[in-house]
């Protein structure tokens, strides 16, 4: 390479001249400072908002909540929400959450396993992913109205109550639970997928190298390794189900009491309420106009959901296998 004045040969180069001592001055522009201040303020305001919600609900809720309210059923009177407690909505929330999650876990895990371990042809895998995203993005009120459409078909009569003329009611714990499973499904799929993908490839290969096929590897190694991810997804999903209102209002009937149908599995085919629909119906927006009960029930609901979220943190930290 020819030496030029701008690029002298190595031998002609001199060490750089000593620089004057640096003046201490901030390089932050005013916009950066404002941006940083806003970021701080935004972060802190989240804490304040959370504290306000919990604090205000605790303040309001604890004023009204009492043992009797938790242990008595709403009364079936004309003004049915104004009297009695909300035992039935609590049971309804637990029952509906259980039904939804029991349906969602096997389906969600199966989808996640297929996507991570098979996922071929890739066009189909992309279609499955889009499907999951669409289900995740569908508002629950749309899921609810869609569910009503499906479960009011005459061949779906076994899942709810059929009137004498043959009209299918379409509303029951099982129909609401099925649609609720769609609310929880994307959580379970996402969390399980992430857990499966974080298992190093050599762990799978170690199982294959011992003469095991893919099915055995998935069942005996991968799923147990992904257990905490599955549990995290399930718990997140339970929180979503417990907090959803639209599906309950549309698909679980309007009565506050749990009303089983006759015959086997009557409880599941019957209607009822959950804490969310109870809060809605008792708030000034609903028909009950008993805000103190709405506050009390909302507080109990908040406790349940915060408890579930705390459980997510605990599960996530524990039981997660760590390879080097």
């Amino acid at each position, binding site marked *: 390479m020819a030496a030029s004045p701008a690029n002298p040969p190595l031998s002609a180069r001199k060490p750089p001249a000593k620089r004057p001592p640096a003046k201490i001055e901030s390089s932050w522009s005013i916009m950066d400072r404002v941006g940083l201040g806003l970021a701080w303020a935004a972060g802190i305001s989240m804490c304040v908002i959370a504290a306000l919600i919990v604090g205000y609900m605790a303040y309001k809720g604890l004023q009204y909540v009492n043992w009797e309210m938790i242990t008595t059923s709403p009364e079936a009177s004309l003004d049915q929400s104004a009297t009695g407690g909300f035992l039935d909505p609590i049971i309804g929330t637990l029952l509906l959450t259980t039904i939804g999650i029991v349906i969602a876990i096997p389906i969600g895990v199966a989808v996640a396993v297929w996507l991570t371990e098979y996922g071929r042809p890739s066009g189909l895998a992309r279609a499955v992913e889009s499907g999951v995203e669409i289900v995740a993005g569908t508002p629950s009120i749309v899921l609810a109205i869609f569910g009503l459409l499906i479960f009011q078909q005459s061949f779906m009569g076994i899942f709810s109550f059929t009137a004498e003329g043959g009209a299918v009611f379409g509303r029951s714990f099982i129909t609401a639970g099925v649609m609720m499973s769609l609310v929880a499904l994307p959580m379970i799929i996402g969390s399980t997928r992430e857990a499966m993908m974080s298992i190093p490839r050599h762990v799978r290969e170690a199982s294959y190298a011992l003469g095991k096929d893919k099915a055995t590897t998935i069942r005996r190694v991968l799923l147990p390794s992904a257990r905490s991810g599955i549990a995290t997804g399930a718990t997140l999903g339970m929180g979503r189900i417990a907090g959803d209102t639209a599906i309950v209002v549309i698909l679980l009937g309007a009565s506050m009491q749990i009303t089983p149908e006759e015959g086997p599995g009557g409880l599941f085919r019957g209607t009822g309420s959950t804490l969310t629909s109870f809060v809605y119906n008792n708030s000034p927006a609903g028909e009950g106009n008993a805000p103190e009960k709405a506050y009390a029930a909302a507080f109990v609901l908040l406790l349940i959901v915060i408890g579930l979220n705390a459980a997510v943190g605990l599960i996530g930290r524990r039981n997660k296998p760590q*390879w080097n």
Partner: protein
Amino acid sequence: MELKQDPLSMNGNGDRNGAPAATPVPPLRRIVIEAETEPIHVADRIIDQERAYADPVDGILIDQETEPAWVEQRMRTEALSIAYGGKVAVKEVSLEVNSGEVLALIGPSGCGKTTLLRSLNRLVELTPAAKRTGRILLDGESVDDFDVTHLRSRVGMLFQQPNPFPMSIFDNVAYGLRERGSKRPRKKELEPIVVDALERAGLWDEVSNNLNHPALALSGGQQQRLCIARSLAVSPEVLLLDEPCSALDPISTAIIEETIVSLRSEVAIVIVTHNLQQASRVADRVAFMYLGDMVECGAAGQVFGAPMAERTKEYIGGGFG
């Protein structure tokens, strides 16, 4: 020892640093240590000489009295080539794997030694783009004629990273034995096999009291020995080791090496290693690979002491790699 500077003249290395060939860059220079004047000292590894030597780490003594009296061919590759897409990783390699000895595959990164190893139990097939030509025989039968799960239970493998499954120590070792047929064997029936495998892997004394503890709570070296036990439990005829000590500390490495040497009388062992000293410590036979070619294969003493090929000589002497 004489040091001399030598322009890089190795084939295929011109653009190793990613520099386009057209750019006028000064020729890469490197230092070559004359291999002839000071070969790595392995003369004492030649059969029938003193078999015991002190490892530099903590003076742990590797007893090599277990030299088997017989050597029998287990696996053989014939003109084996493996390509990933258009890139040929292994070129026409013919190699024998014998029981009763440790075969070390050495060579610089990317020379195809791990691909060659992974082809022996057909694990390379998991990479969709991989294409194989040539034959691989296990006890005279082509590995393609075996059911792949059956083949892999006869040709075990150990990986770079210790990878016990997230279950108890016992269940890890019993893993390969379970679900082989329609009937699930009971724990009582499996116990002697598990204990035996742990003993052979040199782990029994450390875990005998806590077989039900989670395997992932063990130390890295213990985990790797557990993985050896897990492979041994299914009684393989060949054991493939892919840089089994690269994630371990020197003391764990010495213990694993000792285990490898003691196992060679019962299984044929193929070990891939970057570490020439390790190869010289454990191997009876050494195959040197470079850019997919099998450059040289012979007794460890010969390859390290008096390599025949020029490239082997340079690699062993520290010229490149």
